[in-house]
């Protein structure tokens, strides 16, 4: 009889610890789940609405690329030799009648 009583007391005590343990775990998991769900909704929402921002930046990049290409083309047109030649003539620049090329095997100024 004694033995049975002892066992009963032991079991009850064990059962008490388990209940608190599991209830805390369940509450923790519940909070975690709710937290994760909220975070998921928040981030999904953020991600979904950031499409507009991405689209804006994509357009901006496209526009900058187009501007860059247009400037590059203008630059190459303005630096074309035909353009430079005609501009030089307009400015009154003339070609040197004679160019003398000197070999530089000996230094021009041997010493001071």
């Amino acid at each position, binding site marked *: 009889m004694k033995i049975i009583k002892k066992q009963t007391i032991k079991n009850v005590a064990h059962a008490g610890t388990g209940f608190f343990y599991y209830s805390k775990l369940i509450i923790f998991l519940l909070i975690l789940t709710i937290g994760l769900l909220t975070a998921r909704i928040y981030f999904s929402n953020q*991600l979904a*609405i950031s*499409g507009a921002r991405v*689209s804006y930046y994509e357009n901006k990049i496209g526009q900058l690329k187009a501007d860059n290409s247009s400037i*590059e083309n203008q630059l*190459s047109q303005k*630096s*074309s030799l035909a353009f430079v030649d005609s501009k030089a003539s307009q400015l009154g620049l003339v070609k040197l009648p004679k160019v003398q*090329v000197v*070999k530089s095997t000996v230094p021009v100024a041997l010493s001071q």
Partner: protein
Amino acid sequence: MKNWRFSVIKIFFLLLVLSLFGRLFYWQIVNYNKLAVAATSQHLSTIRIDSPRGRILSSDGNILAGNQKAYLLYALIPDIKKNLQKGESYSEKVDELVKQIEPILFSETLADQVEPEKISQKDKETLEANLINKLKDSLSSENLIWVPLFKKLSAPGEDQIKKLKIKGLGFEEESERFYPEGSLASSLVGFVGKDSEGNDQGYFGLEGFYQDQLQGQSATLTQEVDASGQPILSVEESASRPKQGLDIETTIDRTVQYTVEKYLQESGKKFGAKNASVIVMDPKTGAILALANYPNYDPGKWNQYSDDIRKNNAIADVYEPGSTFKGVTGSIAINSGAVKPDTICPCTGPIKIDKYQVETWNNKYNPNSNMAAILEHSDNIGAAFWAQQLGKDKFIKGVKNFGFGSLTGVDLQGEETGLLKARQDWGDIDLVTGAFGQGLSVTALQLADAYAVIANGGKLMKPYVVSKVITKDKEIKTAPVQVREIIKKETAEQMQQLLLSAVEQGEAKRIIPKGMRVAGKTGTAQIPLKGQYDPNKTVASFVGFGPIEDPKFVMVVKYVEPKPIYGAETAEPTFFKIASELYNYWGIPTN
């Protein structure tokens, strides 16, 4: 009574269910395709990822061929009809619309013509009338929904039309080739037209040869969008892979090219030549530094020029080289040991072979001439003597070895091989005439490459134009290719001296700039017509290299049917004008 009411309710619900099924059947089966498309277009958006054609760059990295934005102007006929004023007919609306856009489109059409400032008023009126008719015709196709009105509209043109705020007109962006240097190096660059499927296709020159590398392939990106049309990033996107068009950098030196074109266009006009070509090449590497043809064309307006003008005559026009070929014959003869520079040719008079008599160009004979004297006098009898000393087999083998009769392998579209008879067809007269460049045909590039052999000490180099192919993350460089060694170094050095004396003691020695030491040879070859040579129609040419101490360039100048007819009076002066500029540009000292 109760049963009657119950039956009515039952029938009512039955009809309700049936109508529901009917509606579902209509949506799911009858209207499936239409609704599926509508649903897709509501939540999916497809965007085009453009991949423009690669650029062609000069050796200093400047753009020879690039890309620019252009627009296709189109009309949506149902939208135009929707916006008719009260009592206004569609044809009246079309008239009004054409009246609004035509001035803008006409100025674009005019700018696209060759030398628009030279177009007469009458021609302008015809052009304008054609444009108006074309626009009206397109807009009159009432059974169509979408009609193209104007292609390759410029960005300012698009802006001007947009400002008119005409409902029913739209623009589609497209890319168009852009040549900032205009007609400079047009023969080399080629142009971009369309293939049978309407895709961009390069023709001639580099655009044609490097079509696969230059061609970009656009792709599409499909993504999920929200109600406002903005992309939803959390949903996976699907995209086809775009292929980037690769840039290519050429060996073309812009300054050399510009100088060559300037003098060639001036002289071509001055001599009234049918056409003309100049090639400047680095003899040590085979790199082409400049290549130009007269007349030239603007590759941006390629469709307004004939095929004859668009053809790259420097590599595609075969002609009899005349006396310029004596340099090749002399090299083969010395290299094989058949003659030496001091070998004496009797050269007492004309040679008779079968029924033919071979004479000198001026009917003057120079007995007991050595090789230098033969080249100085451009003596046909002397060159024939060298070939006879060689014999047919050695001569033909030598000519083939120099690359004549086969492609040089240059990376340009449209190269020709020239004409060299098969061995069995060579008669005794062919050996003699072949020695001074008649009875065989070459291209200007083959001749430049052959003289590069003499200039560089005996090596046949493969000519090339592209020095680099530039991918997104690396540069693939082109290394010079030595095809084979043709003549010994000593032979090349002897020929250099002989050709130097041919210039310094030749017919046109007066025109050589003081102190410039250039080796070369003139050529005047009559043009064969209907089995006979026309004495008044010639190909006048000069080929040479300099400076003799360390050749930096080899150049061919060729005029077809110039006046005067001689190479010494046409091609040689042009050669020295260009050579003087090259000496200044590269800082080559003269003696």
